[in-house]
Structure formats: structure tokens, C-alpha cells
């Protein structure tokens, strides 16, 4: 008997918890600031309504449909939707992707816990420059001199254990309970920090222009010329795609624990809205206005370009070290990111657990133990080879490229192969809200076209240069190749298990 969510609120919180991650607070503000400010919100909302929300509904519908047959993951659900021998292997991406993301995401998540402790002890507050903060981060990662790596590894072990302890307790007793507590808490922490930011005024009287009002202007003043650039539209579409956790396979698994008569339209929309609240209203109020108030326009521009890691682990602790009660706000900041991280990382484990227990009839506890052993071994590669670019390469393939590929495949299979009429009916079973009719052609033509365009752009603009290793230092090349071979071996292993599961359920392969 498969588990079910305790309440509809439970699955909404779990899906929102999966979607609300580090990107809401670190990636969104830097993307908006670099791509037209307020004008970025035009392609952002267009992408939300024609790409993000429809894809959210598609994943919820696919998951609930599969759950009726006892499938909790994409491989055998895709096989139900598309009677073709290749379907289940496309679905294997939905098991491979989350596991591959987990093996580096959990390590980054553990840094947040470590930085939380360093904020309490005052170790972070004593660092006064960007170079010192960057040096601290590198020592924490085990790069360069210093023995902070021991602590880094201990926090990794603790975070790893916490993740598996939650998943071990099941969907209702573990994931749902965690999200019901973590999500409101992280929102409270973010509101407290945002309120402090908005009341900060001009922190340095020597620079009267460096204030929060101008900082908000830096983020929100529209630059309409940016809208003429295809890059800005693709950046917005990419941001929506990543922020909603679509294309991973997690929502499919979560929705598989629903019953046929349960609403998915209103629930999917509510989870998306909560994610947008955390991203635009909370995430948009903290990082960039603060960076502007402390470093001015040029500094904020540099911060926006420096990437999510630098914002989270260099810029923000540096700003807090300059603020009154900075240590307390730093603790809140890293705790809120940790809660956002853990609600996402436990969701990354669930598809693999569901696959082993649903399709190979392994008990949940044994499945969790097996995945803990395998993923613990795999985690060592990004941890010990971080300076060789291993983590970045896994992030690109598993955390970016395969996400878009999987999103495109699931959309095409559900809408074009399973058929829009059946898909539309499937979405509306038990719906507490009718999807407006104009969404039918949007879901049929616009969403898949949008996805294919993003995939094509990514393939030519990023996948080919990344595959060729443009800009990778020569000494790192063997490590990157080894990473790719490793990822391929994991995928082949999962595909072999998918084949075994198929034969177990349906006999010989067609």
C-alpha cells in the first residue's frame, strides 16, 4: 500500500518546499539586476504563465496519473503514457537527475549549517574584506591552507544524516512534517531580514547615495532596451524553470501520492504562488538592495555578476559583518537558506526511494539505506575534487541541461503523444478550479515550443562549449572526463534497473 499525504496542505507545502531553494534568494535577484531590472519582470511573468505554471500542472497530472497504477516515478509512468520501448528510458532521467543533483547539493547545504555556527562564534564577523571572506570559503572547502575542511566534512556528515533521517520516516512522517515546520519558519526569518533591510536607510553617511531606496531602484528601475535581447527572455525562462523545480521529476513523485479525485489545479497554482512570493517579494528585497547600500552601484553590479555562491557565502556575510546586530541577522540568513535547502534536498531523494520501493518492491527502509550508501560514496567526488571543477560539471549536466531535456520530453509525451484532450481531462479530475480555456492551446503549442527553444539555445550556446570544456584548465580535463564517465555509468545503472523493473511488471520487453 503506497503512502498518501495527510492533507492537501501537506503536499502544497512539500511542493513549495521543494521549489523554494537557494535560487529564490541568491539567483533571482542577480538575474533580475543583470537583465533589465524591472523590465526583466515582463519576460519573467510571461514565462511563469506560459511555461512554469502549465508545466507544473503537467507534472502534477502525470504524477497523479502514475500513482493510480502504483508508479511513483517517471520511467514506468512514461511507459503508460507512451507505449514505446524508449519511453521508460527517457523516464530514467527523472530518477537519475534528482540523485545526481543531490550528491553535490547536500554538500553546499552543509556549508550553510557550518556558516550558521561561524556566525554565532563570530569567526565570520571578524573578516573585513571580500578577499578574507573568499579565503575563508576556500579554506572551508579544503582549498588552500588551513584545517577548516575537517569542520566542513563534519557538517556534511550531519546534513547528510539529517536528510536521510527525514526521508527514512516517510512521506507523511518525514517530508510533510519537515515542510510544515520549515516553510513558515524560513518565511518568518526572511520577513525579519527584509524588514531590517527596508529600514536600514543610509548605512554609510559618507556615501549618501548608497541607500536602500536607490538599492531597490537598482533592482527595479526598468531598462526596456534589455527586452530586445533574446538572452534576457531566455534568462527569464530559465529562472522560472529552475525556481519551480519542474523538469526534475520530484513533483511527479510527490503527486503520485495523491488519489484520483484530489485537486491538482488549485494546489499546483498555490505551490507556484508561494514560490513566487518567496522569490520576488522576499528574495528581491534582501540581497541586491543590501549590496547597493554597502558597496554602491558599481559594487552591486559586481555582486550581481559574481554568481550565487559568491552572493551567499562572500557578499552577504561581509555585509552582515558591517551591520549592527549583524551576527544575529547572519544566523537568520544562513538558517533560512539551510531550511530552503533541506526541504529541496529531501525532495531530491524521494524519486529514487519511490523507484526502488514501487517498481522493485524493496521496502522503504531498505531502499533508503541502499540510497544512503550509494549517494554517500558518490558525494565524495564533488567534495574532494571541488577544486577540479567536478561540482560545476555535475551541476551543469544534472542540474541544468538534463532538467530542460526532461521537462521538454515530459511535456511532449503528455501533451502530444498521450494527447491534449486526455491530458486536459486528466488535469481536471477533482479540480477545484477550472483552467481557463485559452490555456489549452498554450499547453498544446506554446509551452512545448518554448521548451524546445530553450533546449536548442542551451544546446548550442552552453552544452557544446561545456562539452568541449572551453575555458577549463588543462590539469582539470581528466577529472571532468572522469566525472562525465561516472555520470554515464550512474545513468546506465539506473536504466538497467528500469529495464529490470519493466520486466518484473510486464514480462518481456516489447
Amino acid at each position: 500500500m503506497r503512502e498518501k499525504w495527510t492533507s492537501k496542505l501537506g503536499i502544497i507545502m512539500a511542493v513549495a518546499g521543494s521549489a523554494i531553494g537557494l535560487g529564490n534568494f541568491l539567483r533571482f535577484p542577480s538575474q533580475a539586476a543583470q537583465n533589465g531590472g524591472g523590465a526583466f519582470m515582463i519576460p519573467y511573468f510571461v514565462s511563469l504563465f506560459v511555461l512554469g505554471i502549465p508545466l507544473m500542472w503537467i507534472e502534477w497530472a502525470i504524477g497523479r496519473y502514475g500513482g493510480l497504477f502504483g508508479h511513483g516515478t517517471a520511467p514506468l509512468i512514461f511507459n503508460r503514457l507512451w507505449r514505446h520501448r524508449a519511453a521508460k528510458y527517457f523516464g530514467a532521467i527523472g530518477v537519475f537527475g534528482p540523485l545526481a543533483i543531490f550528491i553535490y547539493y547536500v554538500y553546499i547545504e552543509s556549508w550553510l549549517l557550518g556558516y550558521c555556527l561561524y556566525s554565532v562564534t563570530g569567526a565570520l564577523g571578524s573578516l573585513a574584506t571580500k578577499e578574507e571572506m573568499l579565503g575563508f570559503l576556500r579554506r572551508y572547502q579544503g582549498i588552500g591552507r588551513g584545517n577548516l575542511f575537517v569542520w566542513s566534512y563534519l557538517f556534511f556528515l550531519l546534513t547528510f544524516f539529517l536528510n536521510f533521517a527525514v526521508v527514512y520516516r516517510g512521506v507523511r512522517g518525514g517530508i510533510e512534517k519537515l515542510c510544515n515546520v520549515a516553510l513558515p519558519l524560513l518565511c518568518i526569518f526572511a520577513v525579519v531580514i527584509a524588514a531590517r533591510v527596508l529600514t536600514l536607510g543610509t548605512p554609510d553617511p559618507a556615501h549618501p547615495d548608497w541607500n536602500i531606496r536607490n538599492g531597490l531602484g537598482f533592482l527595479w528601475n526598468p531598462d526596456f532596451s534589455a527586452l530586445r535581447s533574446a538572452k534576457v527572455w531566455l534568462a527569464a525562462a530559465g529562472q522560472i524553470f529552475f525556481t519551480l523545480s519542474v523538469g526534475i521529476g520530484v513533483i511527479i513523485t510527490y503527486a503520485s501520492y495523491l488519489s484520483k479525485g484530489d485537486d491538482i489545479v488549485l494546489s499546483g497554482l498555490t505551490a507556484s504562488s508561494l514560490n513566487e512570493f518567496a522569490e520576488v517579494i522576499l528574495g528581491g528585497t534582501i540581497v541586491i538592495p543590501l549590496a547597493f547600500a554597502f558597496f554602491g552601484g558599481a559594487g552591486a553590479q559586481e555582486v550581481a555578476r559574481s554568481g550565487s555562491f559568491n552572493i551567499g557565502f562572500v557578499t552577504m556575510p561581509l555585509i552582515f559583518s558591517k551591520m549592527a546586530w549583524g551576527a544575529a541577522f547572519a544566523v537568520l540568513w544562513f538558517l533560512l537558506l539551510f531550511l530552503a535547502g533541506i526541504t529541496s534536498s529531501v525532495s531530491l531523494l524521494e524519486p529514487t526511494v519511490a523507484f526502488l520501493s514501487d517498481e522493485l518492491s524493496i521496502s522503504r527502509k531498505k531502499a533508503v539505506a541502499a540510497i544512503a550508501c550509494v549517494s554517500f560514496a558518490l558525494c565524495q567526488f564533488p567534495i574532494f575534487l571541488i577544486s577540479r571543477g567536478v561540482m560545476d560539471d555535475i551541476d551543469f549536466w544534472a542540474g541544468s541541461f538534463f532538467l530542460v531535456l526532461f521537462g521538454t520530453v515530459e511535456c511532449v509525451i503528455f501533451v502530444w503523444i498521450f494527447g491534449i484532450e486526455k491530458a486536459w481531462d486528466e488535469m481536471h479530475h477533482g479540480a477545484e478550479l477550472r483552467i481557463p480555456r485559452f490555456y489549452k492551446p498554450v499547453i498544446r503549442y506554446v509551452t512545448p515550443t518554448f521548451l524546445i527553444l530553450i533546449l536548442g539555445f542551451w544546446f548550442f550556446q552552453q552544452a557544446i562549449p561545456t562539452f568541449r570544456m572551453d575555458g577549463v584548465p588543462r590539469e582539470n580535463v581528466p577529472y571532468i572526463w572522469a566525472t562525465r564517465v561516472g555520470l554515464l555509468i550512474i545513468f546506465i545503472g539506473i536504466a538497467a534497473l528500469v529495464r529490470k523493473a519493466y520486466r518484473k511488471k510486464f514480462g518481456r520487453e516489447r
Partner: protein
Amino acid sequence: MTAGGWVFMALSWGIILGLVAFCVRRAMKEPYKDL
């Protein structure tokens, strides 16, 4: 912050808060039932 900045910020916040309020209102209208 320019007037354009305020408008874009207010519109973005408005759309999102409106969406959240709409979802909560609909959920209250048809209360969440236990599964």
C-alpha cells in the same frame, strides 16, 4: 528609484500577492479535505 521602478515593483508584488490571495480564498471557499 524612478517612478518606473516603483511601478514595476508594485505591479510585480501586486500580481504575486493577488495570486496568493486568490489561491487562499479559493481554498477557503472549498475547504481542504483530508485525503
